């Protein structure tokens, strides 16, 4: 049953990708094709990275409402990138290849998020709502700090990082895309290798320890993977807060199983499918540019309210 759904999702992704690539292909065919395939790979990588990161984060934080984006991971990435511009200087920054910038920011990001979120997640006994609210406010703080720092630096330097502030699926640097794909593949392979450990961790810390899983070290490892995945998606297109939540909620509904192997594949397929179809509709049918992320914010926010309020109405 679940396998049939998996197959259907996979087929849908392939079909929509082909549609995205070839529909209305005319004129300077090769050029447009190249452009489109780059965009397609970006959409799939980002959709997959956001979704897989969300499932992982929900497993190690033992709930289904928190996502890395809600907890301020994206905002942290952008803050670090802004700080880096200040430290290196705008002129030097412009000289650096995008891929080096990306790797540098990612390395710092992994360290910073490990420190911050392990601190938050290990505060035993804190109520989930405290955790979410603290995460949301951390996100706001990071955002305010970012815009504060951006105001401090030269207007010309400011323009350089402004593009990272909003999600856009437009042009993406080729080298960054290749590096992102490689990191994404490595991360998913690693996660797959220990997916049965994730199954046990989903039972909660107490159970996992009793069954002999060293919970803390796996939590740390998972946090590293999550940070890397967030780096990929934020570096490529910018922050999208609620995509992860939309996808993970759907994933649990569709999967009908708690096995992480299935959860991870389904969430990857769904996330990619979501972005590819969404982008096709917005770009080709409605001829709108880059409003997809706003629509995701809107419906994702609604879903979040529903998830929080549902418990009350049940």
């Amino acid at each position, binding site marked *: 049953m679940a396998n049939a759904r998996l197959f259907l999702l996979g087929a849908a992704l392939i079909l929509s990708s082909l549609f995205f690539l070839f529909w209305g292909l005319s004129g300077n065919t090769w050029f447009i094709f190249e452009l489109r395939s780059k965009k397609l790979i970006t959409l799939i990588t980002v959709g997959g990275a956001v979704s897989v990161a969300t499932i992982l984060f929900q497993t190690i934080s033992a709930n289904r409402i928190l996502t890395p984006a809600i907890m301020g991971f994206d905002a942290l990435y952008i803050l670090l990138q802004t700080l880096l511009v200040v430290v290196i200087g705008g002129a030097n920054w412009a000289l650096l290849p995008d891929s080096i910038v990306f790797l540098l920011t990612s390395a710092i990001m992994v360290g910073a998020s490990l420190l911050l979120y392990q601190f938050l997640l290990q505060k035993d006994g804190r109520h989930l709502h405290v955790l979410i609210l603290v995460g949301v406010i951390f996100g706001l703080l990071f955002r305010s700090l970012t815009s504060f720092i951006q105001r401090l630096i030269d207007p010309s330097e400011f323009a350089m990082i402004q593009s990272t502030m909003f999600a856009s699926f437009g042009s993406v640097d080729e080298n960054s895309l290749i590096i992102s794909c490689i990191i994404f593949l490595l991360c998913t392979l690693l996660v797959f290798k220990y997916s049965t*450990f994730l*199954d046990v961790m989903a*039972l*909660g810390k107490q*159970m996992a*320890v*009793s069954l*002999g899983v060293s919970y803390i070290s796996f939590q740390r490892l998972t946090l590293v993977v999550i940070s890397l995945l967030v780096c990929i998606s934020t570096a490529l297109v910018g922050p999208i807060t609620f995509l992860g939540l939309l996808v993970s909620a759907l994933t649990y509904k569709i999967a009908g199983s708690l096995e992480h192997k299935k959860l991870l594949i389904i969430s990857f397929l769904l996330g990619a499918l979501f972005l590819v179809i969404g982008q096709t509709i917005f770009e080709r049918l409605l001829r709108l540019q880059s409003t997809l992320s706003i629509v995701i914010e809107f419906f994702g926010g609604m879903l979040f309210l529903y998830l929080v309020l549902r418990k009350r109405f049940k």
Partner: protein
Amino acid sequence: MITINNVSHKIGANDILTNVTAEIPANGITAIVGPNGAGKSTLLNLIGRQTTLNDGDIQIDGSSLHSTSTDKLALKIALVAQDVGVASRIKIKELIAFGRWPHSKGRLNDFDKEIVEAAMERFDLVDLKDRFLDQLSGGQRQRAFIAMAFAQETDWLLLDEPLNNLDMFHARALMNELKLLAVENQKSIVMVIHDVNYAARWSDYCIGLDFGKIKFAGATQDVLTAKSVEQLFQVNVSVLGSPNGIILDHY
């Protein structure tokens, strides 16, 4: 046998346990009793390595918690989860299969599957195996958690206040079940328990804790007396006899 050697534990600046030394004999039921805040659950969580042991040593059948890896310990000791904090959208058969994790690391072979089947039969869960955990009653959920620990095939079972939220009938049924496990399957069971009368009726061995220190430890019929309970809980107690042992009247 579990040996607890000079164990101390602090939370922040507060001493929760101070120089606790005790032995818990194998086979049979050991009850840890004491007033609220005495450190009972902390001691149990230290034994089950849920809380990291910093000061002193605990050995389970000769293996020190300090030098034995957590997955090796999972073959010796199992924790029966409290009925909170476990993912609820999980099927009973999946939950029990997780008991085989320490042996199979997630890849169940035929032998593992047999044990899971046997555990479901032993605890009368076959008809419920495709239900989700949150569709069961409190008593049924308790049985599912015990079945899971049973499938883990460890010599030791730890339970933290298992009688919470159970009515008289289900509390009795649970204690019966545990007694059977101890007698028929030679399991060694350690539990934190609130009601001294349950400890008096069902446990073979009893440890009394107060303010993080051991007040008494020994065979239940020897140590659980009106006097020791009075001292432990600061209430007046009289002893009523019954065919099955003593009842401590503190009402």
